[in-house]
């Protein structure tokens, strides 16, 4: 494996000077595109979640021409819609000591010192504008009787900085961004293309100048040319098969861009969410999150006796182990996600788990119901309790929820500089799809903040530098580069259809997910990771020999769509495991068993691993090159995270 220390390919372009002034200075120094010229530039935005919809709306408002693409039947269905808990901002409305500085500090620390300080500070600064904008476009946030906005606390923070709309914050924010984008569709500045899957980025003279899509309804291949390409295509959590992501979430767009020159950074930084409804059987197609907000009141416990099969109500108080309160007395049930997830796993692995599979812990509301009454708990969590009851047929008001960690979010993604531009010039990456500002672990309610910050307030400025600073001669979709891209994409589809083996893409996907979950999930070690890489390779070979995709490519074919995504997951999975193997430290969501304290907490190795790992793709068969972007911390001094 070739390694390039302090790689010159990874110029972060972060401004220097006092951190409070960097974003202002950078915006001033960016070349502006004059309003009349903006109309001459066309931008392709792929994905319509919070980042994509807000970017499309804001770019079009500035006068750019925008084409938008989504795989769903409507842009309103992007997976941002499923976010439950809330969105952070440093408004300090509750007067409890919050500030831009504290949000910045918490995010750098929560990310276990694996993010860029300049980016995170900007995110905290912009967070307040995001809330202003969302209120202005009609997002119905929760309010107090006096009419002001309501805030609540969220895991990993000790101030109440989270704005929310019941348990549907993601839905309300997405519909807000979607409506802003639809306003621009009406104005003729955004062209909408639903049921399209981006299958390649077209590179002309070293710059991203177009995409090739498959129209999922008709099977037709379509070419689109532009002056810039913006990927807002979400995370890769579904490589684990079972995750809280929607079924269509995939790595394909990011992976195809990677193969065209965009480096992939920190793929091993994956987030496991501690409180999800446990797996109920072989048929399980996805997992459902129970919001982190539940841990504001709910208490997690397992029996003190191994293999205790009594119903929870028959287990007396003194025989219950409230393991988070025991291990982390100061944060208790509110420790960050990575810490809570590992604690649940530790108890279950040691034989204290509950439920039929033994892979669950209780999240109990008995005490808060006794303290505050059922009505208060119902007001706070009613919709979540209902959702739980629909899935499990158990009533969480009278019996504790059973929960287990599940794959939820990916901090890794395509490497971007301070302008959100990838190593492929002209290709910008926003939201969960980039390697982002969350370091090795994301704090609750920060994903919505980042998606909207990137789309509303960062890209619209920084993309101007691309237009003003580069010569972009007109490109036609008849150019040979488009021919080549379409040929590659067609050949791949034909190959998927021609295997005609015995097993479905879903069966292979399930098996791939199990390998990753077992060896590259909540705890990782060298032997397991090597084993995982071998097994991924063997499975990938089997996939291309024994895959069965019914039908043809000339019309709607959901099996074919899925097979293409699984094929990319197979390639990507090896990179994920390789990244996890090379990073022998533990940090945030990446827990290497070889690197832990005596108490079993994650132990970083700043001397060797204080960098972002960005992987460069080489043609099939040769190992990727590792480029390192060293991280420096001028303001928040790296320390061992402690929530005790």
């Amino acid at each position: 494996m070739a390694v390039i220390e302090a790689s010159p390919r990874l110029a972060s372009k972060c401004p220097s000077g006092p951190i409070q002034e960097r974003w202002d200075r950078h915006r001033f120094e960016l070349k502006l595109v004059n309003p009349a010229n903006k109309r001459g530039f066309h931008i392709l935005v792929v994905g319509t979640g919070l980042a994509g919809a807000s970017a499309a709306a804001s770019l079009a408002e500035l006068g750019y021409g925008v084409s938008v693409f989504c795989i769903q039947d409507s842009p309103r269905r992007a997976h941002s819609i499923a976010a439950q808990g809330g969105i952070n901002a440093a408004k300090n409305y509750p007067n409890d000591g919050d500030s831009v500085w504290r949000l910045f500090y918490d995010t750098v620390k929560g990310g276990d010192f694996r993010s860029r300080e300049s980016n995170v500070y900007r995110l905290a600064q912009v967070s307040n504008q995001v809330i202003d904008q969302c209120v202005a476009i009609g997002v119905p946030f929760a309010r107090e009787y006096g009419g002001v906005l309501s805030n609540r606390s969220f895991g990993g923070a000790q101030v109440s900085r989270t704005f929310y709309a019941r348990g549907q914050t993601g839905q309300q924010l997405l519909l807000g961004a979607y409506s802003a984008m639809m306003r621009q569709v009406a104005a003729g500045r955004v062209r909408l293309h639903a049921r399209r899957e981006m299958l390649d980025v077209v590179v002309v003279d070293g710059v991203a100048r177009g995409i090739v899509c498959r129209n999922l309804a008709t099977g037709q291949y379509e070419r689109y040319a532009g002056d810039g390409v913006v990927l807002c295509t979400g995370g890769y959590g579904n490589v684990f098969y079972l995750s809280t992501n929607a079924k269509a979430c995939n790595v394909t767009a990011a992976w195809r861009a990677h193969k065209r020159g965009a480096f992939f950074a920190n793929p091993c930084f994956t987030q496991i969410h501690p409180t999800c409804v446990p797996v109920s059987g072989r048929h399980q197609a996805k997992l459902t999150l129970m919001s982190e907000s539940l841990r504001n009141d709910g208490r997690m416990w397992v029996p003190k006796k191994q293999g205790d099969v009594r119903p929870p109500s028959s287990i007396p108080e003194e025989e219950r182990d409230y393991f988070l309160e025991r291990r982390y007395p100061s944060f208790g049930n509110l420790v960050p996600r990575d810490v809570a997830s590992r604690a649940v796993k530790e108890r279950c692995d040691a034989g204290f788990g509950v439920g039929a599979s033994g892979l669950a812990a209780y999240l109990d509301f008995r005490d808060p119901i006794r303290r505050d009454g059922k009505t208060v708990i119902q007001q706070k969590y009613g919709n979540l309790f209902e959702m739980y009851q629909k899935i499990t047929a158990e009533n969480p008001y009278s019996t504790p929820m059973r929960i287990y960690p599940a794959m939820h979010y990916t901090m890794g993604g395509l490497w971007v500089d301070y302008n959100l531009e990838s190593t492929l010039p002209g290709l910008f990456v926003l939201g969960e799809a980039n390697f982002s500002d969350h370091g090795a672990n994301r704090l609750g309610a920060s994903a919505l903040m980042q998606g909207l910050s990137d789309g509303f307030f960062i890209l619209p400025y920084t993309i101007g530098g691309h237009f003003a600073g580069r010569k972009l001669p007109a490109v036609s979709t008849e150019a040979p580069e488009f021919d080549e891209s379409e040929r590659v994409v067609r050949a791949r589809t034909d190959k998927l259809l021609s295997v005609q083996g015995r097993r479905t893409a879903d069966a292979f996907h399930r098996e791939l997910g199990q390998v990753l979950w077992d060896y590259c999930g909540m705890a990782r070690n060298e032997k397991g990771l090597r084993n995982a890489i071998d097994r991924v390779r063997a499975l990938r070979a089997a996939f291309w020999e024994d895959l069965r995709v019914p039908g043809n490519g000339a019309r709607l074919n959901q099996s074919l769509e899925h097979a293409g995504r699984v094929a990319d997951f197979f390639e990507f999975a090896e990179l994920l495991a390789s990244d996890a193997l090379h990073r022998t430290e533990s940090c945030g969501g990446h827990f290497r068993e070889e690197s832990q304290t005596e108490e079993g907490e994650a132990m970083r190795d700043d001397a060797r691993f204080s960098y972002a790992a960005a992987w460069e793709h080489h043609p099939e068969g040769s190992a990727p090159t590792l480029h390192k972007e060293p991280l420096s911390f001028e303001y928040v001094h790296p320390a061992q995270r402690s929530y005790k």
Partner: protein
Amino acid sequence: MRLTLKVWRQEAPSQAGRLETYHLPDVSPDMSFLEMLDVLNERLIGIGEDPVAFDHDCREGICGACSLVIDGHAHGPESNTTTCQLHMRRYADGDTICIEPFRANAFPIVKDLVVDRSAFDRIMEAGGFVSVPTGAGPDANAVLIPKERAERAMDAAACIGCGACVAACPNAAAMLFVSAKVSHLALLPQGGPERDRRVLAMVDRMDLEGFGNCTNHYECMAACPKGISVDNIAHMNRDYLRAVLIERRTPASTRD
């Protein structure tokens, strides 16, 4: 448990459809309805048949992608529940279940159980927004909104745009969907400046897309997985009338 499924199969928009019968011998009561269809599809692929196409995504009741008319009910027999949240424990061994797409002229069939609901996007495009460009919003607490009012706006905003209201309506009307958005924005001060223009534009577009009229059956409310109230329709009708008078406009439905 053993189930018999009668599923609507239709190759393409232009072709005729039919109900096909399938037998599933071993359905677990813990499966969701869509997981049951996943199992059916794995079997169909195994025996070389075309799997059943259906829209789905989040599978937790919020994205609005899943649809299906199950035994005559949009989203199946349980109230306030999307198809993806319906579980097979609702059924008994030996049951026969009929599965059809959402049917409406304005929702043409794409394939099998997949329909084209882009008419909803076009109605949103007509006016389902607040025209404040990025960066122009005042401080978030500059405008106070009474809690009850914010809660009512949120009740309306909970719509997931699935189209069950249209599928359930004998007239295939989209009044519940449109009125939910009209009410949500009319209830908030931020939606005030465009209130009249919005309701006229959205209702005009709704008519143009070929949705029917409301004749107060309330089937939409019964089918809605998010419990959106028909009060919103009354609210929208009042707003519409007011807007017609204020804007001195002739409604599209009476123009030629």
